[in-house]
C-alpha cells in the first residue's frame, strides 16, 4: 500500500462527526446475538439444541404409547435436554470474551461494561425464548405425524405449560450466564454449573437437617413442578428463593466482578 488518499480524506479532524452517538442497547443486543452464531462452536451449539428437540420428539413417536401422543406430551420432554444445553450457551456468551481475549476489543468499543452485560443477558434470554418456540414447533410436527400414523395426535395443551416452559428455559440460560459472570472462565464455569447443584441435591438428600432447606434451595426440586401443571403460591415461592440463590446472586456478584476486573 502506498500513501494515496482519497480527496475527501484530506483531514483526520472534520468539524462535526455524525454518528458519534452512544450505541443503543438494542444495537448491542443485536451484536451479542450475532456473536452467538458467528463461530462454529456457537452455531453448532444452537444446531444441537434444535436437533435435540427433534430427536426427543422422534423417539416419542416411535416408542410412546399411541394413546399418550398429545401435543403437551411431545412438548414437555423436549424441554429437559434443551434446558441442559442452554446454560452452556449462557456461559459461553460471557466467558468466550475472556478465553478468546476479545474482551479487550469489546470493552474498548463499549467502556460501559454494564451495557455489554445487559446486552448479553438480553441476547441469551432471546435465545431461550427461541428454543421454546422451536420446542412448540417440533411438538406440533410430532402431533401432526402422530395423528397421521395412527397415534392419538390430540392437541391437548394447558396454557400454564407455556409459561412454565418459558420460566424454566429463561432461568436455565440466566443461571449459566450467572456462573459465567461469576467465574469468567469457560471450563470452570461449566464444571461448576454441572457439579454444584448436583452435589447440593445429593447432600440435601443425605443430611436430614438439610431436608427442609433443600426444598427451598435445590433447583432440581423447585423446578420439577414446572413440568406438570400450574404452580401454587408455595411452589412459586420455593422456585423464587432457589433462583435468588442460584441465579440472582451469581449475576449480581459476577457483574460487580466484571466491572472491576482488569481487561488484559
Amino acid at each position: 500500500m502506498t500513501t494515496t488518499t482519497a480527496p475527501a480524506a484530506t483531514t483526520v479532524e472534520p468539524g462535526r462527526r455524525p454518528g458519534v452517538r452512544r450505541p443503543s442497547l438494542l444495537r448491542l443486543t443485536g451484536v451479542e446475538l450475532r456473536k452467538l452464531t458467528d463461530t462454529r462452536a456457537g452455531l453448532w451449539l444452537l444446531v444441537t439444541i434444535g436437533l435435540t428437540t427433534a430427536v426427543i420428539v422422534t423417539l416419542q413417536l416411535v416408542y410412546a404409547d399411541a394413546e399418550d401422543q398429545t401435543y403437551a406430551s411431545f412438548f414437555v420432554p423436549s424441554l429437559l435436554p434443551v434446558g441442559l444445553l442452554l446454560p452452556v450457551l449462557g456461559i459461553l456468551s460471557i466467558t468466550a470474551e475472556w478465553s478468546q481475549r476479545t474482551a479487550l476489543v469489546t470493552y474498548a468499543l463499549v467502556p460501559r461494561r454494564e451495557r455489554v452485560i445487559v446486552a448479553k443477558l438480553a441476547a441469551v434470554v432471546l435465545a431461550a425464548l427461541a428454543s421454546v418456540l422451536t420446542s412448540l414447533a417440533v411438538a406440533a410436527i410430532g402431533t401432526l405425524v402422530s395423528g397421521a400414523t395412527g397415534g392419538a395426535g390430540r392437541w391437548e395443551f394447558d396454557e400454564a405449560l407455556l409459561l412454565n416452559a418459558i420460566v424454566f428455559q429463561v432461568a436455565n440460560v440466566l443461571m449459566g450466564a450467572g456462573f459465567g459472570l461469576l467465574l469468567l472462565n469457560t471450563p470452570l464455569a461449566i464444571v461448576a454449573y454441572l457439579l454444584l447443584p448436583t452435589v447440593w441435591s445429593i447432600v440435601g438428600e443425605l443430611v436430614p437437617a438439610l431436608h427442609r432447606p433443600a426444598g427451598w434451595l435445590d433447583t432440581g426440586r423447585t423446578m420439577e413442578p414446572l413440568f406438570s401443571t400450574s404452580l401454587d403460591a408455595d411452589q412459586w415461592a420455593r422456585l423464587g428463593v432457589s433462583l435468588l440463590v442460584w441465579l440472582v446472586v451469581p449475576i449480581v456478584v459476577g457483574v460487580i466482578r466484571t466491572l472491576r476486573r482488569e481487561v488484559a
Partner: protein
Amino acid sequence: MISVEHLSKRYGRHAAVDDVSFRCEPGTVTGFLGPNGAGKSTTMRMICGLTPPTAGRATVAGRRYRDLPNPGREVGVLLDASAQHAGRTGREALAVAASTMGLDRREVAAKLDLVGLDAAAAKRRVRAYSLGMRQRLGIALALLGDPRVLILDEPANGLDPEGIFWMRGLLRDFADRGGTVLLSSHLLREVEAVADRLVVIGGGRIVAQGDKSELLAGGGTLVRARDTGALRRALDAAGLAARDSADGLLVPAETEAVGQAAADAGVALAELRPADGRLEQLFLTLTAESTKETGK
C-alpha cells in the same frame, strides 16, 4: 489529543506504572519507548479504561475514555493483535466491531483493502492468520471508525520489513492529516523513523521525553579514516578535540565541521556519521537493566 496526568498502577507492592505524565498533540506521532515490562502496555490500558489506575487520570479528546459515547469513532485502539476470536473470520471480526459502532458495512471492505488483506484472507478464520496478518487486521480494526486518535501497542510486531515500511507511511500520513498517534515499541530504531516525539519509560517511570531531534542529538560525530594519525592531526589543526572509540574517532561537533576539517587537510574518510546520542545510551542501559532483572 491524549493527556496523561500522574498515572500510577500498583500491584501489591510492585509499582508497574509510577507517576507517568505526558501529552500527545494532534498532528504528531509519539513513540512510547521502553524495554519489555517497563509499563507501556499497562499505561495504554489505563488510558483506554481497561485497567483501573491506582492514581492519576488520562483523557482522550478532552474526556475520560469511559465518558466517550462511541469510543471507536474517536479513538482507534490496537492493544494486542492476538486478542481476536480464533473461530471468527477476519471479515466477521471487523463486521462485529462495525455493527457495534453503527458503521456502514462498506467500511469493513474498505479497511480490509486499506491494510492489504484480500478477499481470500478476509474469509479465513483468524486461527489461520500469521502474526503479521493479525497485526494488519488489528490496524484495520483501529482505523474502522475513522478516528482522530490512534493508540497502538507494538503494532510492528510480526510485520515483515515491507509491512513495517507500509505502516510507517500510514501513521505518518494519519498524523500529517491532523491525527494524533501514540505507538509503543521496545525497539528504538522502529519508532525513530516515524515519531516526532518520544516518551521513554523504564521500570514504570518516565526517564526521558521530548522532541525526537532533541533527544537524539548531542552525541557528536563519529569519523573514521584509513589513516587515523592523519585524521587526528587534521582535527587538531581545526581545533576539534577527538577521542578514540570502538568504531573510530568521536568528535563533539557537527558532522559538517568534521568533514570540512578532513577535506581541508586532504584526508580521505571511510565513514562520517552522527554518533549514538544519549538516548541510545540511556535506552541501552534500560534494556540491559531489564534483561538483568528478568534473568534473576
